[in-house]
């Protein structure tokens, strides 16, 4: 299925240029695995990067490269060439090698959270969210950005219906109350800049969950 909700072009540029923090870049990369449109676009944006690199006018001090050349020569002699076949594993498989069932889910009721299995501190803003089929997340508001990428199932809120591969970026102060699709549990990867504050009746519980 092709994604319908895409990162805007400025995010794709920051991704292609390499200035996006790795946690956010991970969300974009996972979206790209579902989205040919954005993949093509990123490729064009990388070609622009290549042309800009090609067009740099080096200054005087950049042209002294004799020691860098000597070092490179000794480095290539001591490093084996890379394998001719690139890894066939997708980023999805690398992040969740054993599928979602083997994540350590925590939380009570219809909404569960899981940290990513790797302990990379640059990825600490990312976590998995699992909403039981048909369940509703209380109305919440957040400070800072909240990104949601659907990895399984789907959910809806007052802005639309989201399916596998869709990336939803919510800015500060948006209020929304997602409901999971009825047929299966919805699993999302989320990037949260700051802790969510839940204002629904279950608020304190979810605030607690989101801090785990």
């Amino acid at each position, binding site marked *: 299925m092709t994604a319908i909700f895409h990162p805007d072009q400025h995010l794709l540029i920051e991704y292609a240029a390499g200035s996006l923090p790795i946690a956010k870049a991970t969300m974009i990369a996972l979206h790209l695995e579902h989205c040919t449109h954005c993949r093509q676009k990123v490729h064009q944006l990388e070609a622009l990067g290549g042309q800009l*690199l090609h067009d740099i006018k080096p*200054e005087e001090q950049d042209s002294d490269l004799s020691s860098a050349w000597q070092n*490179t020569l000794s480095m290539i002699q001591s490093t084996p060439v890379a394998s*001719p076949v690139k890894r066939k594993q997708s980023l999805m498989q690398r992040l969740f090698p054993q599928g979602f069932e083997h994540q350590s889910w925590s939380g009570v009721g219809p909404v569960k959270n899981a940290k990513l299995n*790797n302990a990379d501190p640059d990825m600490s803003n990312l976590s998995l969210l699992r909403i039981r089929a048909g369940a509703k997340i209380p109305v919440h508001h957040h400070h800072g950005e909240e990104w949601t990428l659907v990895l399984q199932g789907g959910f809806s809120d007052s802005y639309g219906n989201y399916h596998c591969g869709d990336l939803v970026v919510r800015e500060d102060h948006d209020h929304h109350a997602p409901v999971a699709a009825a047929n299966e549990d919805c699993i999302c990867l989320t990037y949260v800049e700051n802790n969510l504050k839940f204002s629904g009746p279950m608020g304190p519980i979810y605030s607690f969950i989101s801090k785990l």
Partner: protein
Amino acid sequence: MNSLLKSSSPMAKVIPMEHKEDQFAALLEKVAIKQDIKAFEAIFNHFAPQIKGFARVNGISKLGENFPDELVQEVMTSVWRKAHQYDRTKAKASTWIFTIARNQRIDMLRRTSRQRFEVSSEDVWEEPEVDGPVVDVQRKHTEKLIRGHLMSLPEEQREVLGKVYMEEKSHQDVASELGIPLGTVKSRVRLALGKLKIMMEPWQ
């Protein structure tokens, strides 16, 4: 060092017309097939000063005075190691080398803050991988437009693209640095991409 670049002979095997302009693709293939050190030196002579210039503006030079050279060495070593993964039907040589430099820079900056990390830039920023002959034709068309029109963009648009790509600044950082609103940065980027015919959102 420059004489090598000029003396590099054209590839012997038949190359489709549209690929001929990319002399560096041919050099990368020589490195891949024959571990041709002369071809590698020609690539180095062209791209190493560019990469060093890139390192001068993108934050690498702030790590210490040896780091720009180190970025050059890391990138060029990767170029050597991965040359056989390069596929000229998927990307221009400069695009491919740019993605390697971008990824090495990211890891170099992250390495300074910790000993090791679980997820490397290569996991998240893949090398160019685009499918299908239609895409290939469209890609070449876009590359031609980019090459032809980049220099004729208004200065303010080129300045913003340069900061976004070569200095690796977020749109917000560019806005703060230039003292202009974020919306202005975004609209300059949008205008530039429009002139370079970089695909507008197809879903619009």
